[in-house]
């Protein structure tokens, strides 16, 4: 990849994109394929998944058998570079250290950002998810409908490749015929769950994940995506042909050197770079957006981390796609005469209404899965099934004590053993040591399941971020201070999640640990699910939102915020697919506005 050194870029660009993950990757892809000159700035180092991914390395070939450590909190092989819950020299703070009041912020510092390690679960928001306030009077409606976004979901799914099925379920949209790739067959534990949950009226269906269960059709898709742009179609077809189908081995969170999963670094950036319209500078830490006397953006100020030197780069449009919280931080740090409280903050809402996903889990021990004949369950390197939210009618009828839904994600099968796999073998089997312990290991291996709820929180005034008045990072940039507080809605939802998991496990003939009837212990800390969004919410009214429906900043029309910061609700569906759909749409808007001469 042609990575420029800071200071050697062109004098100016049409668009400067800050960030290289799902949002930055999609924005840059759409713009560059259409001939727009783009500069991408990434705060982390260059990263090459082809050369750096430890595909078949077993735990034995890692320090401490790859268990999580403070240096690699999701395990040694997790595709996170120079990041985690803490980055040395780049702190953030919390206003409260009380239990449940702290926000945890996961950041990588690498090209492609979190798309290198993400779970690949790619779900569409449904029609209800864009109009939550209209349905139950809580939170905010989005300034557009599902129907307006649906074509962009179609495009993103076709570009990145998503396996799954159409299930005709309420608020769980189908994709057009032929867009989704074949779902992988269910594993033993997933089949057993399907059977048991079915008896409870809980639907277990193929999950949607951005993994190529078969190769993408490079003859059709590029022409469909770029109908009047033969150069773009030709470039995309060539890059698509470099992506192989999943070979049903190696965990996706390590990244994928055969490009079978979506990563910005394997899917968005290669074709964008091949157009010659995209330059990338890595190790470029953006300090602020610069503005002119009228308050319009002129470019960005950034620090070349390798030398510590400051640079200013000019552009007609600035796109913030640095990750929701980082984009908010850049805007808060972009103060000027016109934007005294931070750029884009005339509504006073910048940093407000930050959200994460509600998470709670439960593990179960399933005797029916004991002593199964050894068989290969690696599969697509992640889950094959999930449970979409199924109680919309009950919720509408007022039968539940929480307003919004959750879906269930599943884990547990005969994956590569870890140091912790047999930690509780004595408690499970009653055998203390010796030959029989080995027999018990064979018996219990693969016989436990774990279910995780992923639920929608209601945006609230107690969850926000602001600049810490004292603390600065190693570059002298003020850091974020977080405020967090779940409400009863989320606690009750978390408790319901655990009750549901317990029912499923029991129906499977299994047993489980204690439930938390309050949900207050079971619920994960804010930020823990790594679905943080909001802080620059979109809306129809400039007084009540930071951007319009095209992710365009009300106060400075040549600034777009294409990451999750513009989300004004955070449905139970994992945010990445929606981030990409909105980024594509925002980029189309930029192109149209530039053609009209508005930008």
């Amino acid at each position, binding site marked *: 990849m042609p990575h420029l050194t800071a200071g050697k870029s062109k004098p100016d660009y049409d668009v400067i994109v800050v960030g290289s993950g799902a949002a930055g990757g999609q924005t840059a892809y759409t713009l560059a394929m259409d001939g727009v000159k783009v500069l991408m700035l990434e705060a982390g180092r260059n990263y090459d998944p082809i050369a750096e991914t430890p595909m078949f390395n077993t735990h034995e070939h890692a*320090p401490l058998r790859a268990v999580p450590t403070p240096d690699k909190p999701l395990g040694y092989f997790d595709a996170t570079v120079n990041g985690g819950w803490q980055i040395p020299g780049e702190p953030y703070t919390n206003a409260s250290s009380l239990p449940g009041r702290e926000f945890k912020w996961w950041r990588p510092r690498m090209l492609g950002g979190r798309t290198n390690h993400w779970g690949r679960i790619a779900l569409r928001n449904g029609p209800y998810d864009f109009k939550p306030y209209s349905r139950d009077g809580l939170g905010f409606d989005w300034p557009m409908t599902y129907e307006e976004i649906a074509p962009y979901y179609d495009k993103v799914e076709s570009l990145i490749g998503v396996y799954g099925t159409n299930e005709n379920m309420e608020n769980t949209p189908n994709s057009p015929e032929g867009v989704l790739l074949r779902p992988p067959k269910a594993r033993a534990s997933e089949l057993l769950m399907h059977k048991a949950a079915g008896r409870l009226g809980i639907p277990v269906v193929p999950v949607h994940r951005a993994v190529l269960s078969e190769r993408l059709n490079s003859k059709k898709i590029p022409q469909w995506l770029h109908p009047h742009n033969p150069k773009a179609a030709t470039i995309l077809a060539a890059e698509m042909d470099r992506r192989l189908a999943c070979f049903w081995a190696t965990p996706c969170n390590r990244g994928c050197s055969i490009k079978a999963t979506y990563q910005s670094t394997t899917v968005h950036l290669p074709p964008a770079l091949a157009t010659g319209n995209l330059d990338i500078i890595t190790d470029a830490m953006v300090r602020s957006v610069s503005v002119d006397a009228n308050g319009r953006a002129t470019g960005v100020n950034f620090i070349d981390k390798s030398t510590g030197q400051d640079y200013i780069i000019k552009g007609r449009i600035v796109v913030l796609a640095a990750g929701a919280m980082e984009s908010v931080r850049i805007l808060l740090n972009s103060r000027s005469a016109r934007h005294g409280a931070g750029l884009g903050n005339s509504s006073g809402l910048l940093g407000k209404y930050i959200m994460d996903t509600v998470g709670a889990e439960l593990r179960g021990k399933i005797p029916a899965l004991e002593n199964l004949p050894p*068989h*290969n369950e690696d599969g697509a390197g992640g889950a094959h099934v999930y449970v979409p939210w199924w109680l919309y009618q009950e919720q509408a009828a007022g039968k539940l004590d929480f307003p919004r839904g959750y879906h269930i994600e599943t884990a547990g099968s005969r994956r590569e053993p870890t140091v912790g796999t047999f930690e509780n073998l004595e408690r499970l089997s009653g055998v203390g040591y*010796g030959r029989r312990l080995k027999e018990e*290991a064979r018996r219990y291996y693969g016989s436990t399941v774990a279910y995780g709820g992923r639920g929608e929180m209601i945006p609230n005034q107690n969850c926000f971020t602001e600049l810490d008045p004292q603390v600065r990072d190693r570059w002298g940039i003020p850091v974020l201070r977080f405020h967090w507080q779940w409400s009863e809605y989320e606690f009750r939802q978390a408790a319901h999640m655990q009750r549901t998991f317990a029912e499923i496990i029991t129906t499977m003939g299994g047993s489980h640990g204690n439930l938390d009837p309050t949900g207050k212990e079971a619920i994960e800390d804010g930020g823990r699910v790594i679905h943080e969004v909001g802080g620059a919410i979109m809306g129809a009214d400039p007084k009540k939102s930071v951007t319009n429906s095209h992710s365009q900043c009300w106060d400075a029309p040549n600034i777009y915020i294409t990451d999750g910061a513009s989300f004004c609700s955070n449905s139970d569906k994992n945010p990445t697919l929606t981030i990409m759909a909105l980024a594509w749409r925002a980029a189309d808007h930029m192109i149209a506005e530039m053609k009209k001469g508005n930008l």
Partner: protein
Amino acid sequence: MNIEAVPRMSRRDAMKWIMAATGTAAFLSYRGLEANSIPAGERTGKGYGLDPNLLEGKVPWERTLNAAQLKLTAVLADIILPHVDSTSPSASAVHVPDFIDEWISAPYPNQQRDRKIILNGFVWIDKESNRRYGKSFVELNETEACAICDGICHSSVAAPELAEGARFFTAFRGLTLGGYYTTAIGMQDAGYVGNVPLVSFEGPPPEVLKRLGIERAPW
């Protein structure tokens, strides 16, 4: 499975290993106490950092167990996971003692916590075997060694005076299991047969479906 499949030891580790295996624990007044010559204080060495080379997987810290401690580790690990046959060798045959040495020598908090438990446990178990048999633990015969293990291998029902020993045994067994079943041989012994590229994924084989009472996969 040939020996090439297990991780190579450094020359220094190999020397320690040979010394432990040939039993050089000869010159001590209190039998077995040489196993405790390293203070159980915290390690302050550097970890592998936030951007290690994932393909190399190098361990940057030095291992710290001495020959006698490695010998004790090998003896106890092999009691927990003994040799059964060529497909299920002993813990020491797949270098579990070296893994435990790597683990408790690491500079991270969880490993430091285990380090204290393990090193204190070495002292405890030698004292206990001296008290009961007048010998260090590695010198006990099978019956004697098992008698000590039987008292501490179920921490939930261990006698109060054996609580420290039980805490040690639980931690040590956890590491032994973790080390063993993450080796190529151990994974196969447990029944893990993945990490190979496949042309297609067909789901569970018919015999598994039959066991689960599932006639036909739903998709």
